[in-house]
C-alpha cells in the first residue's frame, strides 16, 4: 500500500493557484502532551489534504491521536509544529478575533457529547452561532427553524436538551453546526454516544447534508458504519497516518490533476 501522504503532497505542489480546491491542508503536524513527568507524542507528523465537498472519516483506535488531529484542523487546539491551512489561510497566523470568525463562519462542530447549552431550548441552541455572527434575531430564528426542520425536529423547537433523546440532541447539534453556512463540518465521534440505529440515522443525515448542501464533512470516528458513506477513510495509528482508503477503490484518484497523483492499493 502506497503512502498516501507523499503522493498527496505532490498534488498540492503540482496545483498552482488551485486555491479553492482544498478546503483543509495539514502539513507535518506534531503535538505532544505532558502527562505528569511523561511526554506523550499524540501526533508524529501528519499531513492530509481534504477537498471541498468531500466526506472524510478519520478512523483509529482510541489513543491513536485522531481526536487530537481533529482538534488541530478545527482550530480548537494548536500543534507544536506543522501548519494547518483552512481555505488557504494559515491558522497559526490568525489572531483571536480572526480565529473566532473562522470558528463562527467557516467551521461547524459536532461533538460526541453533543455539547448543547443545557439551559437553552433547541431553537436557542441552533440560533447561538447566528447571534455570535451578529445576525438580527428574526433572521437567526428563521434560519434556526429552517435547519431544525431539515434535521427533522421542527416539532421540538422549544424543548431543552434534557427533554430530548440522545439522537435528537445530536440532530440539534448538527443543525447548530450548519447555522452560519460553514464550508466544513467537523464531527468528533458523532455516533459515539448513540445506539446502533440512531447512529445509522445520524450518519445518513450527515451524508445527505454533505450531498445536498455541498458541505465538507470530516469525521473522527471508530464507528464502522461510517465507512459506507465516506469518500475517503484515513486510518490513524500511533499519531501517524497508517493508510488512506478510497470508497471506490477502482478509481484510485486522489486529487484531480496529473498522473502522479494516482496511487495503487
Amino acid at each position, binding site marked *: 500500500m502506497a503512502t498516501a501522504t507523499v503522493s498527496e503532497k505532490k498534488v498540492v505542489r503540482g496545483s498552482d493557484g488551485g486555491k479553492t480546491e482544498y478546503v483543509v491542508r495539514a502539513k507535518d503536524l506534531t503535538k505532544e502532551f505532558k502527562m505528569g513527568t511523561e511526554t506523550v507524542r499524540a501526533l508524529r507528523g501528519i499531513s492530509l489534504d481534504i477537498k471541498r465537498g468531500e466526506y472524510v472519516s478519520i478512523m483509529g483506535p482510541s489513543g491513536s491521536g485522531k481526536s487530537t488531529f481533529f482538534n488541530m484542523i478545527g482550530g480548537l487546539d494548536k500543534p507544536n509544529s506543522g501548519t494547518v491551512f483552512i*481555505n488557504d489561510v*494559515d491558522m497559526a497566523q490568525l489572531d483571536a478575533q480572526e480565529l473566532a*470568525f473562522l470558528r463562527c463562519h467557516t467551521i461547524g462542530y459536532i461533538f460526541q457529547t453533543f455539547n448543547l447549552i*443545557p439551559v437553552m431550548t433547541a431553537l436557542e441552541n441552533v440560533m447561538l452561532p447566528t447571534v455570535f*455572527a451578529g445576525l438580527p434575531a428574526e433572521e437567526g430564528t428563521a434560519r434556526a427553524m429552517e435547519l431544525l426542520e431539515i434535521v427533522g425536529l421542527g416539532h421540538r423547537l422549544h424543548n431543552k436538551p434534557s427533554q430530548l433523546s440522545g439522537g435528537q440532541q445530536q440532530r440539534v447539534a448538527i443543525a447548530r453546526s450548519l447555522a452560519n453556512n460553514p464550508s466544513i463540518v467537523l464531527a468528533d465521534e458523532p455516533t459515539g454516544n448513540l445506539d446502533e440505529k440512531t447512529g445509522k440515522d445520524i450518519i445518513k443525515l450527515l451524508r445527505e447534508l454533505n450531498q445536498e448542501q455541498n458541505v465538507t464533512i470530516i469525521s473522527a470516528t471508530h464507528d464502522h458504519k461510517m465507512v459506507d458513506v465516506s469518500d475517503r477513510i484515513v486510518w490513524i495509528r500511533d499519531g501517524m497516518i497508517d493508510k488512506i482508503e478510497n470508497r471506490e477503490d477502482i478509481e484510485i484518484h486522489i486529487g484531480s490533476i496529473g498522473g502522479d497523483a494516482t496511487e495503487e492499493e
Partner: protein
Amino acid sequence: MSEAAGSGASRSSNGGGKVQRQVQLPWKKAFEFAFNSIRIRFMRSMITAGGVFLGIAFLASVLVSKAIAGNDVAASEIARLNWLVGLSLVVCAVGITNSMLMSVTERFREIGTMKCLGALDTFVVRIFMIEALLMGIIASSLGWVVGTLLLVVAKWAGGVPKSAPPGTVWYGSLDGMDLLSSFLFCIPVGAVLTALATFIPARQAASIPPAAALRTDI
C-alpha cells in the same frame, strides 16, 4: 497560556487567504446573555448568591455588634471584637470565593462550546462578569440588610445588661454613621470578592484553546 498567535506576526508568507475579524457584540447583548443565564438557572443562581449572602450577613452582624459595644468597653473586649471582624472577613472571603469558583468551573464546557461557535474571549468574560456583579451586589446588599437586622433585633430583645451604668440604651453607641460605614465596607467587599473569584477562572477558561476547555472535567 494564550491561544492566539502574536498579532504582530506577518501573515503574508502563506496561502494569501484572508479572514475577516469577528465582530464584538455590544454590551447590551452581553447583558441579555447574563440576565437570561441568571433567570434560566434561577435555583442554581440562588444557591451561588446564597454563599455571598451568608458571608456578607455574617460580616455585617459582627460589624454592627462591634459598633454597639462602642469604645467604652475594656481593651480585652475590643481585641476580641476585632478578632471576630477579622475572622468573619476570612469566612466571608472563603465562602464567596468557593461559591463563585464552583459556579464558573462547572461551566467550563459551556465556555468551550461558546468559543467553538464563534464567541470572543472578551465577550465570554463579559457575560460572566456581568452575571457575577449583578448577583454579588444584590446578594451583598440583602446580606447586609438581613445580617444587620438580625443582630439589632437580638440586641433589642436582650435589652440592657443589669451591670450597665444607668442611662445605657440597648443599642449602645450604634448610630447612623456606623450603619453607613458598615454598608460601605460590606458591599465593596462582596462585590470585589465576587468579581475576582469569577474573573480569574472565567478569564482562564476563555483564553485557553476550546479543546482544552471542553476536555475539562470537574
